[in-house]
């Protein structure tokens, strides 16, 4: 910076010879303004990004609110409550199937030949039990399916009506435009007019003459005839005609009527559940007739019985919930926002209700970041300490540029490496017999959170390394020398003087590394498995090997296919807003840590 004393603006020195070039400004200040304006671009861009994300995301809450309101009004919400019990039953059958598979595997492991296994599994008692259980729920499934179809029909009809009304609005505008006396036909209008004429002449059954005249006129239009005076009037008539056609095709829909067939029959449903309970109880008793000859299977069957008991106990609650369901209960805008931030499902293009919940994506992103940081922090910080404190100068001069070079590897190349080599390597490794002591091996999917996390760690290490090394490097020499002079060993000096002094810098390095990991797109898109589901944390460490989806991944994957302005489109922008603010927060707190806790230079 220049520190020359500046002459005061008010008292110009006599030797000032600068000419005013433009708007009373001299050349120097013009140049300054010119440079300054390009500096403002940074602010402008940041502002624009914020504005744009909000502009596109803004309509989301409103649209989602509307969608949720329709979800309640059309009774689909009621159907979803109904489905809970059916899904519970389905889960139980799945559990039972699992037990059966387990049984067969055990028999196989005992060394029995296939024929013997078949004879046991297909014995009449076993058949009664396993198949009987599966058959018992047919009635329930049918009942729920019927209600579901009713709900879907009502909702679809509503959506169709909405679309038709929108079309009518467009037609009104168009008719108004054509009715203007100074309306001129564009090429598109001509084509449209000719098409209308022809259609009308085909449909018109009143008089052959008119229809022939219209047909001729349409041909003439196509052959490039001039527009005549009465054409505009005809066009308006035709448009109005079409308007009425569309208006007639709207079948008025009253949600308070369509809801009746859905919610009726609760008493019948109660009886149905009672029958189901009876059947299932009878079937379960038959399980005692089967001799599994295996303690593990026996305990699982016992557990199955317990699960069934708790399933039956749910019935009353469930029925009460159904009875208390209220179509007219209001949905607030805040609920819509809450359904986004706290929503557990991300379901798009479904025939019932689309859900846009952030949680599966956020939890996936955080899980992958946690894995990445778990590896990146020790390696990155460790390497920084090694390079700055332990390594010799030749080693340092080689390693530093090398790691800087690693940071330049494009993320898509790392993702590609993950797909082709690393994911497969992990799966093969997990299938080795020697690795079977690890509880969650062998892994099911080759592309999972762990694969992506490891590769992201490699991307975060250069960031963490460079910044942490910088922070360690900034520790004043005298601290180190003082410590050594007091008789501390080099390692003591490093761990007790240098690292604590530069801790703020190291922490901010880790935060920025986290920022890089959570914002990374291509690696997670290619390697994370892309299953939209909240990871099952009850599995313990096995959760790290589940496929997940992330916030960045979902934007990259779905943005190309959405309709501009639709709810889905806006939902993706909302995810973008969340990402944007997470990155701002990380950036800001990294700075704050450095400012607040910086000990260097004291």
């Amino acid at each position: 910076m220049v520190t020359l004393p500046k002459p005061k603006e008010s008292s110009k020195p006599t030797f000032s010879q600068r000419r005013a070039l433009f708007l009373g400004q001299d050349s120097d200040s013009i140049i300054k303004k010119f440079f300054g304006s390009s500096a403002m671009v940074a602010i402008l861009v940041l502002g624009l990004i914020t504005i744009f994300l909000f502009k596109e995301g803004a309509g989301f809450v409103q649209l989602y609110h509307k969608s949720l309101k329709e979800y309640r009004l059309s009774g689909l919400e009621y159907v979803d409550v109904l489905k809970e019990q059916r899904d519970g039953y389905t889960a139980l059958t799945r559990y039972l199937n699992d037990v059966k598979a387990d049984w067969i595997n055990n028999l196989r492991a005992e060394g029995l030949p296939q024929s013997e296994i078949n004879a046991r599994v297909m014995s009449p008692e076993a058949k009664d039990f396993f198949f009987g259980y599966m058959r018992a729920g047919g009635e329930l499934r049918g009942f729920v399916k019927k209600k579901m179809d009713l709900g879907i029909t009502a909702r679809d009809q509503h959506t169709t009506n909405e679309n038709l009304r929108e079309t009518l609005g467009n037609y009104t505008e168009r008719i108004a435009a054509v009715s203007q006396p100074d309306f001129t036909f564009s090429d598109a209008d001509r084509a449209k007019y000719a098409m209308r004429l022809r259609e009308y002449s085909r449909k018109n059954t009143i008089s052959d003459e008119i229809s022939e005249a219209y047909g001729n006129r349409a041909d003439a239009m196509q052959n490039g005839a001039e527009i005549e005076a009465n054409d505009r009037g005809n066009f308006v008539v035709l448009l109005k005609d079409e308007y009425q056609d569309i208006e007639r095709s709207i079948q008025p829909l009253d949600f308070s009527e369509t809801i009746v067939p859905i919610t009726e029959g609760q008493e019948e449903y109660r009886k149905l559940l009672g029958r189901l309970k009876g059947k299932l109880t009878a079937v379960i008793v038959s399980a005692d007739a089967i001799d599994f000859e295996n303690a593990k299977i026996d305990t699982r069957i016992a557990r199955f019985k317990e699960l069934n008991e708790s399933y039956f106990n749910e019935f009353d609650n469930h029925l009460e919930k159904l009875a208390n369901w209220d179509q007219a209960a209001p949905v607030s805008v805040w609920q819509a926002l809450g359904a986004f931030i706290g929503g557990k499902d991300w379901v798009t293009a479904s025939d019932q209700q689309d859900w846009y919940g952030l949680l599966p994506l956020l939890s996936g992103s955080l899980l992958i970041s946690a894995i990445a940081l778990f590896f990146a922090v020790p390696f990155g910080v460790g390497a920084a300490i090694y390079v700055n404190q332990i390594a010799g100068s030749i080693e340092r001069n080689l390693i530093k540029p090398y790691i800087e070079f690693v940071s330049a590897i494009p993320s898509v190349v790392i993702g590609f490496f993950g797909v082709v080599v690393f994911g497969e390597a992990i799966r093969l490794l997990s299938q080795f017999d020697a690795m079977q002591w690890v509880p969650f091996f062998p892994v099911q999917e080759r592309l999972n959170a762990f694969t992506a996390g490891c590769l992201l760690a490699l991307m975060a290490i250069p960031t963490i390394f460079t910044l942490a090394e910088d922070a360690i490097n900034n520790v004043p020499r005298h601290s180190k020398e003082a410590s050594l002079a007091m008789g501390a060993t080099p390692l003591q000096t490093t761990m007790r003087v240098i690292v604590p002094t530069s801790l703020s810098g190291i922490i901010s390095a880790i935060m920025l590394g986290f920022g890089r990991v959570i914002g990374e797109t291509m690696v997670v898109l290619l390697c994370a498995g892309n299953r939209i589901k909240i990871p099952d944390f009850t599995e313990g460490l096995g959760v790290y090997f589940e496929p997940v989806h992330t916030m960045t991944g979902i934007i990259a994957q779905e943005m190309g296919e959405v309709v501009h302005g639709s709810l889905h489109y806006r939902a993706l922008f909302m995810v973008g807003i969340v990402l944007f603010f997470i990155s701002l927060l990380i950036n800001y707190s990294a700075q704050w840590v450095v400012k607040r806790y910086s000990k260097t230079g004291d």
Partner: protein
Amino acid sequence: MSAQKQRHIYSHRPSLRRTTERAIRWFFCLATYVVILSAGYIFANIAINGSKAVFTTQAPFINIDFLTQKPQTLHVYEPKEIYTELSQNNAKQIVLRAERKNLGSIEKEAAAILTNKINALEQRYKELDVQRKEGRLLYSDSEHRQLEEELSSALYAYSNYAYSGGGIGPAIVGTCLLVAGAIAIALTLGVLCAIYLSEYSRPGRTLQLIRLSILNLSGVPSIVFGLFGFGMFVLFFGWGVSMLAGWVTLAIMALPVIITASEESLRAIPKGFREGSLALGASKWTTVRTNVIPYALPGIMTSSIMGIARVAGETAPIMFTAAFALRDQLPWEGLDKWTDFFFQGVMALPYHIYVVSSKIPQNEYTRNMQYGAAFVFLFIVGFFALSSIILRAKIRKKYRW
């Protein structure tokens, strides 16, 4: 006892503390080298497999076709007999393996017999595989169209793989165009901004705001830039998926890197240079032009190369703003008017790599294209990154004030 007495009193004695200290030092060393080796493995893996696609054993030693041709579908004809026998062989192996697995643990002899059978089959499989590779015919789209008559399906088993034939010419061209345009925009704005920040600005609220914006911009995830570019340039301005939209989006992404690095190199110029010039009566602009920029130029060049490496490596911002998965024409072909040049989508290497690694199956036929594209891309980006690192090291040595 005597052995201990011979030791000098100041000599090192083994102690637990010293051992742990050494162990910790080794841990740090290990951490560093694990990082270096795993990154090195990625480089080596891609370089070795990719060089098979890019280099040849004959005269120019570089596979020009791969670097210049357009991506095409690969048509594969394998000799039917061998193909059938291979698949039968494979099916037999699977059956035998399943049988072996189903055997009880007691039947050891039967298991041994099965293992022998499987080994024999595997042996045969390898022989057949060599024959298959000798006997197969590979055609790209254009060659396939030129075939006089279809190869008879009685003799050959046919399969095809999208993107796997031809080369990556349009993708390389597209990447170069995208990077060149983006860097031109970013460099102009970035250097001007850096000059303002280091030479003209006076501390105040505006300056703080500018710095804060730059800092925050550098942390925003690349996909958010992509989202912004898509919403603003592609949809709102109506440019469509176009090179121009890609340029601006990428330029905005590169801005913080270029501004920060350029400013740093401007600030490194000693005050005396400026003061001397001002003392001789030069105006501010003359001072900056003659006594600051020339000395900062090498540093600015370095920062711009670093910006290139960053811009070239990104995929997410161009995914929906500029890149097409497949485009037959090169950007200068088939233009109605010259402005169309800016409003067309192009193929780009990073997006191409994404497409070939996620949208087509992985096998021996697609592998060449996948690794080749990754290798070329890594080479281009690595070249820029390396030159920026080397240049910077040189400048630091050269200019010491």
